């Protein structure tokens, strides 16, 4: 089958690899019909997440048809022929954490638990196509994928719903929604959201659904800010203002936003001396993450407010404004998305016409074009917001 492989920093290739096999009783094999490039894949593309290996198959946002199931899969929950969207987190469904609905903290799905344990104390769940530290599972930017614990994660998609509406239930819609839920929004609240990529876009819409009165969206790309504005957000292009924190204070009567969300993560762009220091440290591998947005979110948040972090961080940060965090009585809520909590309710929102997730798609291309699309997406060329790959289209066909 065709699969997008990580062959080194900024080196993606489409390789012909063997089709996946059932390796464990609760596995299923899915024939993929739609798969996407996620913003978090760019951290791998740029080489900033440790424990990638040459030859790893990328991708964690995919859906398709079940073509084979293992002997241990609960037939009542999944059978061959089902059309499913697959969550990016892998969960056993039976451990303490799964039973607490903390699905992305599953204890039993990461075969390389000990690597993550060394960096984080304990390991989160395994993820598709996202480093060996998080399981080393082959990803879904391919024609087929092996899905472990297939009777827990995959969600059946109603027959009438097109792929482009359902596929974002695999990650970014639930991730944006959980980011908004983690903001602890009370009716009438003001929420500031850094990052208007796909997760930010879903977070903006989710914040309104959860009762926010004002959402202030921060980015540097006008085409993304425009999408935020269309959803009802006020916008700040941070490259056009001197001081985002001061502007947020001015916009809120010096109170500050009730919640601040970092939907950017470890590769934030900002300016000033801290930018130079962080960037240098990251290149020298002294600090894996560039935490400019997180610092700003903590500084901007009102006293007693909530900082929500759906953005990805991989390791350690410097100059965390802990004094501001403590003295302002802030709460921080984070986590890889507990997918299985959100997929079904959000599917119902889509079915009910409350939201059509396909608005984020900017590019639909055959899988053969994936390597170049990583660059386009990374460099925000051609107004790129979200790339959906067709694993079966002929690469020579039109983009």
């Amino acid at each position, binding site marked *: 089958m065709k699969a997008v492989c990580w*062959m080194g920093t900024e080196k993606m290739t489409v390789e012909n690899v063997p089709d996946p096999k059932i*390796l464990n*009783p*609760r596995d299923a094999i899915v024939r993929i019909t739609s798969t996407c490039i996620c913003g978090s894949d760019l951290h791998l593309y740029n080489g900033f997440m440790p424990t990638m290996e040459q*030859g790893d198959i990328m991708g964690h946002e995919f859906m398709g048809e079940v073509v084979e199931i293992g*002997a*241990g899969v609960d037939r009542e929950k999944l059978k061959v022929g089902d059309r499913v969207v697959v969550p990016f987190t892998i969960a056993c469904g039976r451990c303490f954490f799964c039973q607490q609905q903390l699905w992305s903290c599953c204890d*039993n799905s990461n*075969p390389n638990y000990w690597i993550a344990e060394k960096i984080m104390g304990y390991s989160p769940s395994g993820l598709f196509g996202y480093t060996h530290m998080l399981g080393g599972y082959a990803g879904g930017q391919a024609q087929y994928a092996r899905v472990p614990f297939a009777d827990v994660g995959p969600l059946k998609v109603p027959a009438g719903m097109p792929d482009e509406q359902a596929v974002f239930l695999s990650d970014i819609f639930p991730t944006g929604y959980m980011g908004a839920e983690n903001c602890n929004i009370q009716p009438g609240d003001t929420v500031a959201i850094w990052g208007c990529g796909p997760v930010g876009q879903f977070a903006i819409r989710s914040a309104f659904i959860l009762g926010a009165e004002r959402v202030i969206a921060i980015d540097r790309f006008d085409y993304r800010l425009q999408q935020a504005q269309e959803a009802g957000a006020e916008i700040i292009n941070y490259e056009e203002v001197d001081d985002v924190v001061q502007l947020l204070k001015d916009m809120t009567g010096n109170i500050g936003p009730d919640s601040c969300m970092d939907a950017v993560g470890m590769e934030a762009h900002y300016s000033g001396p801290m930018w130079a220091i962080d960037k240098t440290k990251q290149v020298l591998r002294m600090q894996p993450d560039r935490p400019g947005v997180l610092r700003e979110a903590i500084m901007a948040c009102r006293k007693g407010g909530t900082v929500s972090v759906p953005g990805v961080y991989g390791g350690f940060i410097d100059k965390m404004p802990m004094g501001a965090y403590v003295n302002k009585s802030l709460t921080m809520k984070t986590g890889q998305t507990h997918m299985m909590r959100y997929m079904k309710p959000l599917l119902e929102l889509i079915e009910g016409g409350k939201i059509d997730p396909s608005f984020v798609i900017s590019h639909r291309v055959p899988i053969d074009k994936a390597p170049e699309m990583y660059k386009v997406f990374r460099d925000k060329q051609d107004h790129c917001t979200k790339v959906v790959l067709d694993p079966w289209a002929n690469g020579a066909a039109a983009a």
Partner: protein
Amino acid sequence: MSEAARIHLRNAQGRHHRRAAAFRWSALVTGGALALIGLSKRSKSGVALAAAGGLLSYAGAKAGAQPRELIARSSILLNCTPNEAYQFWSKFENLPLFMRHLESVTLTGETRSRWTAIGPLGRRVTWDAEIAFDREADVIAWRSLPDSEIYVDGIVKFRNAPANRGTIITAVVVYQPPAGTLGAALAKVLGKDPSFMMRQDLRRLKALIEAGEIPTVEGQSHGPRSSVAAAARLLNPDDPIKGEGNLTDIAQARRRAS
């Protein structure tokens, strides 16, 4: 045998076959090869690899030094009752399902059993053990019989976890490796500290009991691997030297690179 059990067994056996194939590689050869690969890389990881290879060769040359006692100690929470955990563990035939170094345990009497382990470099070790102490749903202890090639004393306790979260099991195993083998030295060099190995075993037990299977990515599809990755996998502390499979990988990857 159920389909699920067959798959577990196959997965467990796959590891053992590969390890057995490693028998013909001595620590000197492997260490020397690693050092060569490492030196040829001219990078930071290459230097690390060369150093590891050098250490391995050194350990090989030093084999025969004094044996020492290895103590493995770890605990884990299982979401079952102490009795369920006890019932699973006290059938010693189950242990190879989650203890990677064990090839088999067979009952040879009411309280006696024969254990076969695969040690460093694929060397098989067999010993007989007897149950030393046994209290249902509470504790079980075993020890190897006198004149065994390797002395192993083990005890595992099963305790109710607070807040009805299940059972905390605590296991301690003391190994007295035979004199003159590479065992202890290699274990040390490869970072296979006994408590780490025990923790990994208990984690596999937890997955087996809770999820019904042990998570794995062994045997899945991937694109072309590099020689560095293949060599690094030889040093994976959770997966001791496997032998020709990976060395072929290295050769292939190098051919592709050249």
